[in-house]
């Protein structure tokens, strides 16, 4: 009987130790993860909730970097889309993020230098480093071509010849209307596909 009691006691004790270790491991992992987020970027999976950003303010008027997308077809017609129409396959927040990542700053002539972490894990933020390479443009061109009838049902045989994304600072006035802050776009992303086809 006493041996049975001892066994139960040992088992309960081991269980308690396991839970204490689990708690310690959770806290340590969270601390390491927080350090990683501060130094690099948010990993996934991570015990992390959205913090959102801080407004870019100019006095009391808030400014937004808004985007207008223009798609020109080989028959000369141009359609204007918003981000959710352009990247319709994705949920809205993913569309905003994807547009900001790839269709804001023009690809550099040569690929940017990767940090030691990027070199260690080649897939990490991969496409960001590939936008200057021919395969990237080719991949985007094929995707655009597959979507041309979606954006313009009467496109027929007309192919997409260029995509232009204008990023413009807009501000909301006290009367609820909007105005462009500058005459020229803050960023301009433009790519022609005609010559490649």
């Amino acid at each position, binding site marked *: 009987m006493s041996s049975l009691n001892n066994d139960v006691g040992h088992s309960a004790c081991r269980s308690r130790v396991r839970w204490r270790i689990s708690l310690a491991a959770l806290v340590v992992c969270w601390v390491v993860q927080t350090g990683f987020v501060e130094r690099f970027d948010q990993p*996934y999976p991570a015990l992390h909730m959205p913090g959102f950003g801080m407004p870019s303010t100019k006095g009391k008027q808030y400014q937004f970097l808004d985007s207008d997308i223009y798609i020109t077809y080989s028959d000369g017609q141009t359609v204007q889309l918003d981000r959710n129409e352009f990247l319709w396959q994705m949920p809205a927040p993913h569309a905003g993020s994807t547009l900001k990542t790839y269709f804001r700053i023009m690809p550099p002539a040569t690929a940017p230098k990767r940090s030691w972490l990027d070199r260690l894990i080649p897939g990490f933020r991969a496409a960001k480093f590939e936008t200057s390479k021919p395969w990237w443009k080719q991949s985007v061109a094929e995707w655009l071509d597959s979507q041309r009838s979606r954006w313009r049902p009467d496109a027929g045989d007309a192919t997409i010849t260029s995509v232009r994304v204008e990023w413009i600072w807009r501000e909301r006035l006290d009367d609820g209307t909007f105005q462009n802050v500058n005459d020229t776009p803050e960023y301009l992303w433009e790519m022609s596909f005609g010559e490649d086809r």
Partner: protein
Amino acid sequence: MIGPFDRLLFKEYAVSSKDLGIFRIIFAASLLFIRTGRGFYIADLPDAFYQPPIGPAAFFSGFPPAWLIWMANIIFIVFLTMLLIGWKTKVASLGAAGSLLFINVWVYALGKIDHDIFLIVTPTILAFSGWGDQFSIDSQARCGQDLDDKVLNNTPSTTVGNPAVALLAVAVSLGMFTASWVKLKTGWLSFDSQAVEYLLQVNYYITGRETSVGDYFLRHSPTWLWETQDWATVIIEGLFIVAVVRMGWFRICLVFICFFHIGVLLMFAIGFRENLITYGAFVPWSSLFFSGTKAQASSGFLKTLCRIPPIVSVSLIAAPVVGLVFYTQGPPGDLFPSRLSYPMHVVAGTIAGIYFIKIVIRSIQDLRGGKSTSK
């Protein structure tokens, strides 16, 4: 003498296995409705958009084929169904967490991470909580014929703290603290700018989520009210890390965060269904819903369920869900208006409201009791 960490782990979170059993069913059913059928669109995207964060997807160079995402979704549905009926609950919990993680890893390879990590953390931790000990096929198999006694006896099955529930509370607190910390760092408490106002404007005018409440606030809210919302958000999210040491305090934080989520839904049309489901682990469900008649009904239902081979039960539930996922190309919840966000928030708000009123009444009673004693 018991240390603070031991008190937290082994004493404080005394949640009955009956409450956990009910929560397990709510959790699995909710996920079957809102979290299955994810990520089919990524197979149609070009690898030009592939830029995963640090994690498993970073070891690959492109999106997976559609069939793999389909397989992962079907496996996820099967594990959730096993969890729902409580068959091999531990395996089902870890399997559901693993398959959802697998799907999410690819969905977030676009570079944008949705913050639904609690849905993975919850079954991973609660797999070891005994949430399959009640209202489950496992409990029937283990306890044989004493099911009637177990279900009908309305006393809590556990009176000591449940370390798994405590660990989940710590995980939730740490997660919420990260949100508060970023806001604190980026100046949400500065009186020079109003972050909630700015975010609402972006959400309303650029993202296009136009809500009546948001419109009203944008037109009429004074600066001090915006600033109050900034401060309240940072404080509520940050308080969890302190409140976690007592379950009562933690539940009060959950009450406030439920009201906060309702406010966000009404103003921003952004639902936090994923978080609300997790908060359910700390709700005393049996005291809310469990009368003797319902206990008898559930006992009868379980007995009937146990007569059917589990594999048949799983197939009978999982097959229609897979069919609905195929039909909607998304979660079955998409068939409902607002994707069940509003009903789920109303339920959470009602529970939070009831708990809040109970606290207020108890505090008034305590205050009166204190006064009469002092007289």
